[in-house]
């Protein structure tokens, strides 16, 4: 009969000392009837007791944001579309560049439609979006956003349609009037589109978001403008001086915002520096601030369009990372129980219990 080898067990190897100790215990028990001993503290002991230092076992107080990735993507698309409508309006008023006008009009209209699609995807079914339109609620940024998006996508689509008709049929007064009015309204709502998402996440209970509520709308608007300019350049409008100037301004603001965020080194802003969210926010800041700024200046001096294209791609990537990074930072912030409970500064993460350590080892 062959013997199956027993699996190796984790454990101690008995030695003379251990056996002598056990014998001593047996003798003492036989003599006195009781063996007083402190026992062995299990792994992870002492267990975290409830205290004003630890909170409730470090269980997060707040719930994490439950948005799907469509929502930060919508922040990006909606922001770029809104800024694009503003660019289209200014091109219409002040520039003879019909190509740029058409590109910006269509980007605004396409972005508006894509934004609605992304939000519907997050909600699960189209009819749910209509529920947003049964009330008008100024104290709810989400309600304001739903109405702004509805208005923006209608106006920007009308402006793009009028632009198409004008090019196909000629500048009739009715068509021009329609393009000018719809374009101006799209620009007005576009301004809200690119900045309100900062209000949306700023006016919540998530500490890292409401801590930065004073600059988030500006940050997101600059990011939206940066990405709109860059996307238009990528689509071929890379000889517009105005766009390069706009790109420089937006990158300047992003650089300043990055410096501001890095200078606020309190623990509420920790998710902007640490972990995945920190990496994303920081990378987003670098890619949309100093990198495109340097590249755009280099382009202005050398006139090499490759540099300008590189700046555009960097800005788009940075803008995307910024939105995803901020949403991720909100998740990390919600998981940190110390801030909403106002636990004393320097409170460490709560020690894991022996059971949690054992589970971790098994996994």
């Amino acid at each position, binding site marked *: 009969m062959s013997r199956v080898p027993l699996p190796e067990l984790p454990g101690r190897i008995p030695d003379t000392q251990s056996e002598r100790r056990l014998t001593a215990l047996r003798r003492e028990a036989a003599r006195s009837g009781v063996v007083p001993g402190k026992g062995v503290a299990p792994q992870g002991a002492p267990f975290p007791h409830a205290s004003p230092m630890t909170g409730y076992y470090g269980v997060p107080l*707040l719930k994490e944001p439950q948005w799907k990735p469509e929502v930060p993507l919508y922040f990006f698309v909606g922001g770029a579309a809104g800024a694009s409508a*503003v660019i289209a309006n200014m091109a219409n008023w002040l520039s003879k560049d019909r190509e740029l006008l058409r590109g910006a009009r269509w980007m605004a209209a396409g972005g508006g439609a894509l934004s609605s699609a992304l939000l519907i995807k997050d909600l699960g079914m189209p009819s749910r979006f209509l529920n947003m339109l049964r009330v008008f*609620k100024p104290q709810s940024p989400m309600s304001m956003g739903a109405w702004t998006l509805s208005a923006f996508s209608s106006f920007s689509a009308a402006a793009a349609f009028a632009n198409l008709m004008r090019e196909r049929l000629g500048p009739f007064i009715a068509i021009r009037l329609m393009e000018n009015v719809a374009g101006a309204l799209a620009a007005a709502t576009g301004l809200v589109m690119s900045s309100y998402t*900062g209000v949306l996440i700023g006016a*919540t209970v998530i500490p890292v978001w409401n801590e930065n509520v004073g600059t988030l709308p500006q940050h997101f*608007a600059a990011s939206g*403008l940066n990405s709109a300019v860059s996307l238009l350049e990528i689509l071929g409008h890379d000889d517009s001086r105005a766009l390069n100037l706009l790109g420089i301004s937006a990158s300047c603001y992003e650089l300043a915002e990055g410096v501001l965020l890095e200078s606020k080194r309190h623990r509420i802003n920790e998710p902007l520096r640490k972990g995945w969210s920190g990496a994303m926010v920081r990378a987003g800041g670098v890619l949309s601030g100093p990198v495109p700024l340097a590249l755009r200046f280099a382009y202005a001096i050398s006139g090499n369009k490759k540099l300008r294209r590189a700046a555009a791609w960097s800005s788009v990537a940075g803008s995307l990372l910024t939105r995803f990074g901020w949403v991720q930072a909100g998740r990390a912030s919600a998981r940190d129980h110390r801030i909403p*409970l106002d636990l004393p500064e320097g409170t460490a993460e709560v020690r*894991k219990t022996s059971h949690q350590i054992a589970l971790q080892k098994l996994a």
Partner: protein
Amino acid sequence: MSTTAFLTDSTLCIGCKACEVACKEWNQLGEDGLEWSGNSYDNTMAVGHSTWRHVKFVENPPEIGRGGNAAEQLPAWGFSSDVCKHCEVAGCLEACPTGAIVRMEFGAVFIQPDICNGCSYCVVSCPFGVVEKNEDDGRAFKCTFCSDRQRAGLQPACAKACPTESIKFGQLEDLRREADERLKVLDARGVTDAVIYDPKQSSVKGIHSLFLLRGDPRTYNLPPNPEVPTTYLKKAWQSAAVAAGAMLGVTLLAFLGGKR
């Protein structure tokens, strides 16, 4: 209209979790799966979309007058049954873009399930981390204050099932008075660390689920200073207005300057 409320007295709670069971049975909530948390006997961890009552097991070092046994290193337990606070100024209600979250005739904050569209903005607007979206269903859920039972003139399921009357149900003002009286009784018995949790001084302006606890409310995961997120709105829209103005100005200048 009268305002009804809960008073959850943790000095009477025995940690039996009958309220959790009663709540799940009456409201027909699904099970959450069993996961050992390692945190005392609390394996539920927090209220959520399918847990509207949740008993917290707060372990304190053994102490005379608190329980526990120092010789055997057994902790002193404090139990408290957590629930939606039904805030006077409710963050979720303010934030809801569909009007699905409403105030009931007896003061409860109620999510109408046929109107909620699952935007999950209430989730990030609740300073107590109560509201949660059910990812399978796509809508947000929380304690209804047993509005269906209250309309039928009955008390909520958890209060009815509580064997020690740790969960009291009644008129808000009566319960506020009762809590103060209970505090005096406890004090006379030597329980001097009892407190009432009712953040009237914060922007929440008071809650309809009062708690009587021993020691620091933070050990029960209750925030000392809950803020309704609408308090940040002014600053946020000001920043948005600055952003819009700057964007308009910058594009105007860029196109004027870019004409050449």
